[in-house]
């Protein structure tokens, strides 16, 4: 008998609300399959399972809020029957293959998408508007692509229902509650980070002429739908630099550093309704820039639509933030526990620059590193940033 427990979907999560089961007793499940949708303070997350088996019992009801680690369902292993399972003691320790987020098993590829295709697509704007208008989004018929619920659908439903103002006021409070809940979750994780992690900070101006010229040329021949953003060059450069600096990539848990074997880079994504989320792009070092661009576009879209997968939430091995997009010169980040480093990129701006004894103008971006002194020292951090700078001088090799 396998116990499926609610995994922790990030350092800032200690409970979650089951929104929906995607499986029923008797269904067989595969590794990486989405079995439930769980609401955290940040997003509705598609929770994947990391073992194979047959669903036996669902123990958590939709709308129930449960702590992380709660057994949500039991599954039968191959060869196990309901009869033999019933005789097994319920309290038996869960096999290691159960849904623990730290499980180092194969990472899900995007093959899981077929499973979530049955899920209703609701644009964030529609969801927000529905809450404001007091419309139950689940009852709204979608007219958008793939049955997606659009703003217009919500307005139509609201007009049909003639929602009373009292209800609207209550719902406005609910939206405010959700924002407050997210702020509390961020505060808890960042408070823990600042209490527990002895941060050190370094920064390095990175000349970006080669990268910007290479990118402009690469994009010239591409249709707009296939163009790359500088962000993917930066992500790939971080992943390649990490290969020589494993002490920046992994987790600090139970008093010890556990280096990660692959670079699953958490990408800080700001949400339009406020707050942020940093889900992972998996195996960044192994992917082409084209693939990374597809992954990044998909991740941003799903993060904003509130449709992320549990592995993306729970297994980033380092985070990259690109606040330069908002125009700041540099960012000194707060490490997201249990990770041990965060890389920031500032805006790309032209600066006076001395090269070959001549003063010229150079597009420059400041790369920064916040890293955990329990795991690495400034000396190694400095070498890491130098390696990152060098990677960005050879964009053709990214």
């Amino acid at each position, binding site marked *: 008998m396998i116990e499926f427990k609610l995994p922790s979907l990030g350092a800032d999560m200690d409970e979650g609300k089951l929104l929906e089961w995607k499986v029923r007793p008797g269904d067989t499940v595969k590794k990486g399959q989405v079995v439930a949708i769980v609401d955290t303070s940040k997003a509705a997350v598609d929770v994947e399972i990391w073992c194979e088996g047959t669903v036996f019992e669902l123990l958590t009801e939709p709308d129930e809020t449960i702590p992380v680690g709660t057994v949500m369902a039991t599954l039968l292993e191959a060869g196990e029957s309901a009869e033999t399972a019933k005789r097994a003691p319920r309290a038996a320790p869960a096999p290691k293959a159960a849904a623990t987020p730290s499980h180092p098993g194969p990472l899900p590829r995007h093959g899981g998408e077929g499973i979530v295709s049955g899920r209703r697509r609701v644009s*964030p704007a529609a969801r927000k508007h529905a809450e404001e208008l007091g419309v139950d989004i689940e009852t709204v018929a979608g007219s958008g692509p793939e049955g997606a619920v659009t703003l217009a659908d919500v307005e139509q439903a609201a007009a049909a229902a003639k929602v009373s103002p009292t209800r609207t006021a209550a719902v406005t409070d609910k939206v405010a509650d959700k924002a407050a809940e997210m702020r509390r979750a961020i505060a808890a994780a960042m408070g823990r980070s600042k209490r527990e992690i002895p941060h050190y900070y370094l920064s390095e101006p990175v000349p970006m002429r080669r990268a910007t010229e290479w990118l*402009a040329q690469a994009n010239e021949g591409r249709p*707009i739908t296939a163009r790359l953003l500088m962000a993917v060059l930066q992500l790939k450069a971080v992943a390649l630099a990490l290969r020589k600096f494993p002490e920046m990539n992994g987790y600090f848990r139970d008093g010890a550093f556990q280096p990660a074997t692959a670079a699953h880079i958490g990408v800080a994504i700001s949400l339009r309704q406020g707050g942020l989320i940093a889900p992972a792009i998996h195996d960044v070092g192994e992917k082409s820039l084209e693939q990374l661009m597809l992954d990044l*576009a998909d991740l941003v879209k799903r993060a904003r639509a509130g449709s992320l997968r549990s592995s993306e939430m729970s297994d980033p091995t380092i985070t990259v933030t690109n606040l330069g*997009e*908002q125009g700041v010169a540099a960012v000194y980040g707060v490490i997201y526990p249990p990770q041990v480093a965060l890389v920031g990129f500032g805006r790309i701006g032209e600066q006076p620059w001395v090269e070959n004894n001549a003063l010229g103008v150079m597009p420059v971006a400041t790369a920064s590193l916040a890293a955990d002194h329990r795991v690495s020292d400034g000396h190694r951090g400095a070498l890491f940033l130098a390696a990152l700078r060098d990677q960005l001088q050879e964009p053709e090799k990214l």
Partner: protein
Amino acid sequence: MDENELRTVVIATLKTIAPEVEEGDLRADRPLRNQVDLDSMDWLNILIGLHQKLQVDIPEADYARLVTLGDVLDYLRKKLK
């Protein structure tokens, strides 16, 4: 497509990415990205949206000319002729 239709398409595309935008608050002569919180992914998605709705090609080299809402409308109008 007349001026109003074009403007409607542009605003609708903008709203798919930034639903909080109120058309009345937008100044056509001010940089769009100063008025609306758009990162480069948002901007690319808006241009992809315009490309798909209007069937116009927008080379990356032209991005620098598309600063204000007015610039975007002028650019698209010329492209659509």
